């Protein structure tokens, strides 16, 4: 009896003690959304003659991060301590004092045509390094790519998702007046640098699309007077016409994720349907057969489904069907017309062009059509394409009037950070390629 009572007493005492020391549990659901203040001191030149390259690389790293709209650079004039050596310990108190929350330090070494870039990323307020230091080796000609790779790594370590800086965009370069505009295929870095032309302006070209590996480009050419699909090898600029199912017009092509299949629209006898061609076997498959216009197909990331636009309901809307064809499912039900759908590389969203009340919009919706959000509004916005990480959408915008011109813009999927890409001439129909190896 005594033992039992003492046991009860002990348990009660222990319980009381536990209650007294139980942690206070709270939930926080309201924070802030603002760019992260960061500092990038000029990279250290480890050997003489590397100063300019070190400065250029650190500047480009900062520009890449600022361009996302997620970061805010603290100017060097506010620095308390200058990071003299790459191996030197970081005085976190000095960086906390100027409210730098992230710090990127680095060094560059130029040896003839070779360049070595290394960097570290720190969380200032916790005084810890985010990941380990990393080093890239390349040539001086490719210093921009090396800076983009550093920025990608920094971006990834802070945000938790991969970057998109070391990537390229294929697009249609436009020159001349609106009624006699010359169009050429061109390729450039994601920030508009390093423009290279892939075709001349002898024939109208439209809608280039990168292959998943970025080594080939599909595009529509009017070289023969009728729209035909060509495949272009980016490395040697060699091109050949894609053998499709015979028809009057073939257009709006897009690669499958494995790069071995191509889906496109084929117009024949007044009807337009979606077809698929296997590049390895040359077999053609008809995926739709409705007496309406089906076009702009785009594969889902896993390759099991296709999103496309159709006017079978009497109005241009977005549908999803199995990759092998079959009964489509309509997912857009809002007012206006929906077109040019593109599946996000993350698989969770579909970007589209919407025309309503005389305005064009770029928007996103979930794959079931819910949570539609319009990100832009303009006289003419069209042709969205996703960044490799699915965070940013690029599209072309044309200004109103007889002298209206096309430009390429980018916008975050939150609708923030709308930016115009710096191009030397008019530009339209962008297709964002993958991260380069």
């Amino acid at each position, binding site marked *: *009896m*005594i033992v039992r*009572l*003492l046991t*009860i*007493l002990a348990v*009660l*005492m222990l319980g009381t003690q536990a*209650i*007294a*020391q*139980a*942690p*206070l549990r*709270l*939930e*926080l*659901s*309201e*924070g*802030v*959304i*603002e*760019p*992260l203040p960061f500092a990038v001191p000029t990279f250290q030149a480890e050997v003489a003659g590397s100063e300019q390259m070190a400065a250029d690389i650190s500047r480009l790293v900062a520009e890449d991060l600022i361009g996302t709209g*997620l*970061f805010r650079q603290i100017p060097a004039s506010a620095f308390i301590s200058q990071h003299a050596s790459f191996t030197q310990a970081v005085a976190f108190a000095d960086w906390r004092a100027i409210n730098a*929350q992230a710090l990127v330090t680095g060094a560059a070494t130029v040896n003839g045509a070779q360049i070595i870039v290394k960097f570290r990323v720190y*969380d200032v*307020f*916790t005084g810890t390094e985010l990941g380990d230091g990393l080093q890239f080796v390349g040539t001086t000609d490719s210093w921009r790519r090396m800076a983009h790779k550093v920025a990608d790594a920094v971006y990834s370590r*802070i*945000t*938790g*998702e991969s970057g998109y800086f070391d990537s390229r965009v294929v697009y249609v370069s436009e020159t001349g007046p609106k009624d006699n505009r010359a169009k050429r295929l061109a390729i450039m870095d994601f920030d508009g640098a390093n423009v290279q032309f892939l075709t001349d302006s002898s024939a109208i070209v439209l809608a280039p699309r990168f292959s998943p590996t970025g080594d080939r480009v599909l595009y529509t050419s009017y070289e023969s007077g009728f729209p035909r699909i060509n495949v272009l090898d980016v490395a040697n600029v060699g091109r050949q016409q894609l053998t499709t199912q015979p028809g009057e017009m073939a257009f709006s092509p897009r690669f499958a994720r494995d790069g071995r299949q191509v889906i496109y629209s084929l117009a024949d006898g007044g009807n337009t349907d979606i077809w698929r061609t296997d590049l390895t076997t040359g077999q053609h498959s008809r995926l739709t057969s409705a*007496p*309406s216009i089906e076009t702009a197909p785009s594969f889902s990331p896993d390759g099991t489904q296709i999103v496309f636009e159709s006017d*079978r*309901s*009497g109005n241009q809307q977005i549908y999803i069907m199995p990759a092998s064809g079959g009964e489509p*499912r309509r997912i857009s*039900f*809002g007012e206006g017309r929906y077109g040019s759908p593109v599946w996000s590389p*993350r698989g969770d969203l579909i970007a589209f062009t919407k025309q309503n009340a005389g305005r064009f919009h770029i*928007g996103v919706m979930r794959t079931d*059509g*819910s*949570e*539609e*959000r*319009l*990100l*832009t*509004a*303009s*006289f003419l916005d069209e042709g969205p394409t996703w960044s490799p990480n*699915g965070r940013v959408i690029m599209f072309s915008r044309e200004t*109103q009037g007889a002298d209206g011109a096309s430009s390429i813009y980018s916008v975050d999927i939150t*609708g923030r950070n*709308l930016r115009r890409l710096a191009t030397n001439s008019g530009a339209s129909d962008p297709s964002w390629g993958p991260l380069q190896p």
Partner: protein
Amino acid sequence: MALRLTGQTGSNHMSVGTTISGVGHAALVGWLILGWGLQSDPLPFEVTEVSIVSGAQFAALTQGVQPDQPGATPVTPDAPVIDETPPAPLADTPPEVATPPQPVIPPAQEDAPVAPVLAPPPQAEVSDVPPEIPLDQATIVTPPPSTELGTSLNPKPRPAPRIAPQAIAPPVEDVAVAEVDQTAPNPDAEPAQDVTEVDKTTAQEEAAPEIVTEAETPAAAPERSLRPKTRPNRPAAPAVDTQTQTATAPAVDDATSAAVAAALAAATQAATQAPQPGNQGGGELSTDAKNGFLRQIGGCWNVGNAGTDVLNTVVTVGFSMTEDGKPDSNSLRLVSFTGGTQASADIAYQIARRAVIRCTRDGYDLPRDQFETWQNIELTFNPERMRTR
């Protein structure tokens, strides 16, 4: 025989029928000719007099009317609107989609408006000679500092039911309110000639020069409220007289039960005793204190640079606090996470850890007398609401 008789009878019947038919027809024809029985009123109709005019007269009548010019382009009738839309929509069952969101208005990147040509403003005449300041300017005297906390030095208009350009003092009691001021006649004074007789004194209704609403904060209101005082201690449980119980204990079990009861009472008292100021006690944290603490950390919880996966990850971070309201940075740890991968949880934990440490320069505003309550904290960072912004 029978046939013949029948034939004779039929012949007689035919001549009778022919006769009747002939008479009938003759009567009908005669009736129609004579018109007997068909007299009826004529149908009503309108008669309009028509006069014949000549060509010259017609031209004079139609003067001013512009006939169509020969060779003029005929007006093309409006083409019928053809609905070229395909047949009725297929049986698509729309899912329940929320009201389409309002388009996100991007920063102005479109055509910039043409700036109007602005005429340069007239140049002011500039003189190096400073203007003369009149000596009789009013001198600004700084009022002495008030010794009363929260009392405004600025005069406040009195609230009044009537607004007038000039403030009017409240009338004296027992004076009637009227549109004009007037004085009651003094019976001792001599009556003035041609003066309107006034039977009583009146005054204008009280008025203020501006509207003073009740919503305005009184000038003497305290600027901040005091923190509620801690709950007073509960009365201590009466001390157990063990000696008496021991003396009167008839059996061992009873004594043990009494000891256990006393211990239980002591334990219960320890668990429920209110904290003493400066005693670092516990007790439930008030809602205001919790919300204030969450607001402080929330101001430093920046998810603006978080990736999509990170924004789908809910992390719970545990840490210990020091008595001055600062978290022990070495005690920060990831307790658990839901809704994401380990990689996204690591990033979410980094952001949460940064938030806890960043906002602690002066210590969190937590009641120091309840240190035991917030000595150990497990804080869940749920970015669900932040995703939709």
